[in-house]
């Protein structure tokens, strides 16, 4: 019995619409509802983490002025801020939120392949978030080991939250990994098996390529975090010595012996570096689609973009130890990892060029999503280039563990992906809710966010050059540090608070536009991809009414010569009266393959 693709047997599959409020909105198996649940939860914890960063900035800008920020609290705040932002906000939002919403719609499917598992994924994620937040209320509070949770310090006195905090953190991560794996298996299988007729892999919008590759990375990389979490939990709870060598802690001999803290770091970064791309690749994909749609031009070098995503994904597994140049590991590893790290700069640079070249000779509509996309190119270029400093092993020597690192990674995997998140929300909100977000508020939000964050992070790099170490509760009196550095720190704090304030405008816009937003048509941006071609807006359960769409072209047919409109949706068949675009007549390298 030959296997028939899902799209080809759509009519034989029974579809049940949920009827009660609970099955529709709470225990929902609809990918769109799950996506919204994921997004709301992620944005909520993200706001918690934002507040934490505000408190940290208060302490750094105005040391010893706030009695509620002790060193204990401070280190708890940085730990929770980092972990929440990286895992519970960005990973969950890009894959659980955007991934869930866009995958079935963009490939022309009715839902994920395993809707029940998809629902389970969200609920386990919710539990992991609750477990994480519970640690604020247990004796000793959350762990203050830094988001990298390096042993031995993560489980020894001298660090806050070594009783309960670290246990809850590790437990919460383990749950998150389970949730992610359930979601991830779904995303991969759905993209591979549920694509509509004619939707080949090479016709997928780049958003999905980014999400797909990020999911693959996540599935393979999260086990490393799981392994290290399990082993650390055993070291903590049962007293094994996986990571714990012989230690004299606070004048007391401990029972550990022989373990290797470096082993943990290898495992952690084996997950931790791909994690950067788990966040970055979806952002790369989404921003490509934003740029193309709003510049009314095909994405430049689509195949190159796909290959770059594959190359980055593959290489991301062999660069992890560039986080460990000064960790005390065998220094000869430095040669290998510096080389691989700088090689990864090449495909990344190609992506940047192609984004800019997409704008070139375009017809650029400076809508709010487009502004965010352009700002992304700016901040990502900045953050990517400073990454070359840190990846080059000797340059890392003076800069490692300073504010340069903090500025770099916030620029490249904080600000940049968040700008894409904003742009994407402005872009897809009309599809999700049926209404537009307010444009004026959007622009105010945009300018505040872009200028404010740059005012935070550009100067921060220079604090790093000066030698200000990261993860310092207070700089105190340090001889080589001029008074002006403290003034700079204050200005950074003020910028940070202003940026945080601008996010309130965004939240207000999100909520008020639900009621008051201008009604959007099915395709307000005149975009080609399938999600804009649904019969209903917002799409109903099952997405496509009676018949699934059939795909006839790639996702980037903007301003095709000879057509009256400047866009042709993917489900529109070719018009035989108009000659097809011939690559050969536009370049000297006539040929069908590369």
């Amino acid at each position: 019995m030959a296997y028939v693709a899902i799209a080809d047997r759509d009519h034989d599959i029974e579809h049940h619409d949920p009827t009660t409020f609970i099955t529709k909105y709470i225990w929902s198996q609809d990918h769109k509802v799950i996506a919204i649940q994921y997004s709301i939860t992620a944005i909520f914890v993200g706001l918690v983490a934002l507040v934490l960063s505000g408190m940290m900035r208060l302490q750094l800008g105005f040391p010893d002025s706030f009695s509620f920020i002790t060193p204990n609290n401070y280190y708890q705040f940085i730990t929770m801020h980092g972990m929440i932002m990286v895992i519970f906000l960005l990973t969950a939002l890009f894959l659980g939120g955007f991934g869930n919403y866009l995958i079935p719609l963009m490939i022309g499917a009715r839902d994920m392949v395993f809707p029940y598992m998809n629902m389970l994924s969200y609920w386990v994620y919710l539990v992991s978030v609750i477990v994480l937040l519970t640690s604020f209320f247990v004796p000793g509070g959350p762990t203050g080991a830094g988001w990298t949770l390096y042993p031995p310090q993560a489980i020894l006195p001298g660090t806050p939250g070594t009783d309960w905090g670290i246990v809850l953190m590790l437990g919460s991560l383990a749950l998150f990994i389970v949730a992610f794996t359930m979601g991830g298996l779904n995303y991969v299988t759905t993209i591979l098996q549920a694509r509509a007729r004619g939707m080949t892999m090479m016709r997928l919008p780049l958003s999905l390529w980014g999400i797909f590759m990020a999911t693959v990375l996540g599935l393979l990389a999260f086990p490393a975090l799981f392994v290290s979490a399990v082993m650390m939990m055993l070291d903590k709870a049962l007293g094994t010595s996986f990571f714990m060598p012989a230690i004299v802690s606070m004048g007391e001999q401990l029972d550990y012996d022989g373990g290797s803290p470096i082993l943990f770091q290898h495992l952690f970064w084996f997950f931790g570096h791909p994690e950067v791309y788990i966040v970055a690749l979806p952002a790369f994909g989404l921003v490509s689609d934003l740029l193309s749609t709003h510049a009314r031009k095909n994405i430049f070098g689509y195949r190159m973009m796909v290959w770059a995503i594959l190359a980055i994904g593959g290489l991301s597994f062999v660069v992890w130890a560039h986080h460990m140049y000064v960790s005390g590991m065998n220094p000869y590893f430095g040669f290998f990892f510096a080389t691989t790290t700088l090689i990864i700069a090449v495909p990344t640079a190609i992506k940047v060029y192609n984004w800019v070249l997409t704008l070139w000779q375009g017809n650029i509509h400076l809508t709010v999503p487009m502004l965010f996309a352009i700002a992304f190119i700016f901040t990502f270029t900045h953050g990517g280039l400073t990454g070359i400093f840190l990846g080059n092993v000797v340059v890392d020597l003076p800069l490692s563990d300073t504010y340069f690192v903090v500025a770099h990674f916030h620029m490249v995997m904080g600000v940049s992906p968040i700008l894409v998140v904003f742009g994407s929300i402005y872009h897809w909100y009309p599809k999700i809710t049926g209404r537009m977000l307010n444009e004026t508020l959007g622009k105010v939000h945009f300018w505040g966010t872009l200028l404010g964050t740059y005012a935070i992070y550009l100067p921060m790099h220079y604090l790093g050059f000066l030698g200000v170490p990261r993860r310092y509760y207070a700089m105190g009196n340090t001889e080589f540090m001029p008074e002006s550095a403290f003034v700079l720190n204050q200005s950074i704090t003020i910028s940070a608070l202003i940026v945080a304030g601008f996010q309130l405008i965004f939240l207000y816009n999100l909520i008020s536009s639900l009621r008051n937003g201008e009604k959007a048509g099915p395709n307000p941006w005149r975009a080609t991809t399938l999600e804009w071609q649904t019969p209903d807006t917002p799409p109903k359960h099952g997405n496509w009414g009676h018949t699934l769409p059939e795909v006839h072209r790639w996702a980037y047919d903007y301003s095709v010569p000879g057509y009256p409109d400047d866009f042709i949706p993917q489900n529109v068949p070719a018009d035989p009266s108009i000659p097809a675009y011939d690559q050969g007549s536009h370049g000297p390298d006539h040929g069908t393959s590369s």
Partner: protein
Amino acid sequence: MTFALVFLAVIMATVIGWLLRQSLNTQPWQADDPLENRPGRGVIAVEPAKIALLSFIAVATSLFALFLSAYLMRMKMADWSPLTEPKLLWLNTGLLVLASIAFQLTRSAATRGQLPTVKTGLIAGGVCTTLFLLGQLVAWQQLNAGGYFMTGNPANAFFYVLTALHGMHLLGGMWVWGRTTARVLAGADARSVRLSVELCTVYWHYLLLVWIVLFALLLST
């Protein structure tokens, strides 16, 4: 980490290789390319559940490979002192092989629609697996009685962790087995459980392979 890297390289190479094959020799901007628009083009001709299982196996492989990497790295430290594996493990290995064989037989029976064989096969597989798991527990007790405590030495700790992890994967499989067996006993048609049986079979073979690798590593070090 070399161990984990090799495994991941193989997995990544497979994924990327397949994806590249999708992209080379295509001109994505061609609309209604007759090559592209055939039904099911690009979709792998197997059930989604199997794709999901294979993906999960990739995840589990990554997990075990990383644990083994950690094992090999930790082994180099001075305080490592290998434990003597209980002879019982050989018997357990035999049980797991039997379970695998039982599933393989069930699978062919299910494809042919032979309900009685499916029933016996499933039950035999389940019984062997349960015995294997119990056997592992007994092996733990023997080790404990022999003074090989978890905290005594990293070699002991790794033994308990790796066997526990493997056992938990089997337990996960037993859940699917339980549902399938219940359906069969409730009178389901052999063909209707074919997919579940196939998934179980693949999973059991995989876990047998994992066990053999683990066991070989534990014995040799």
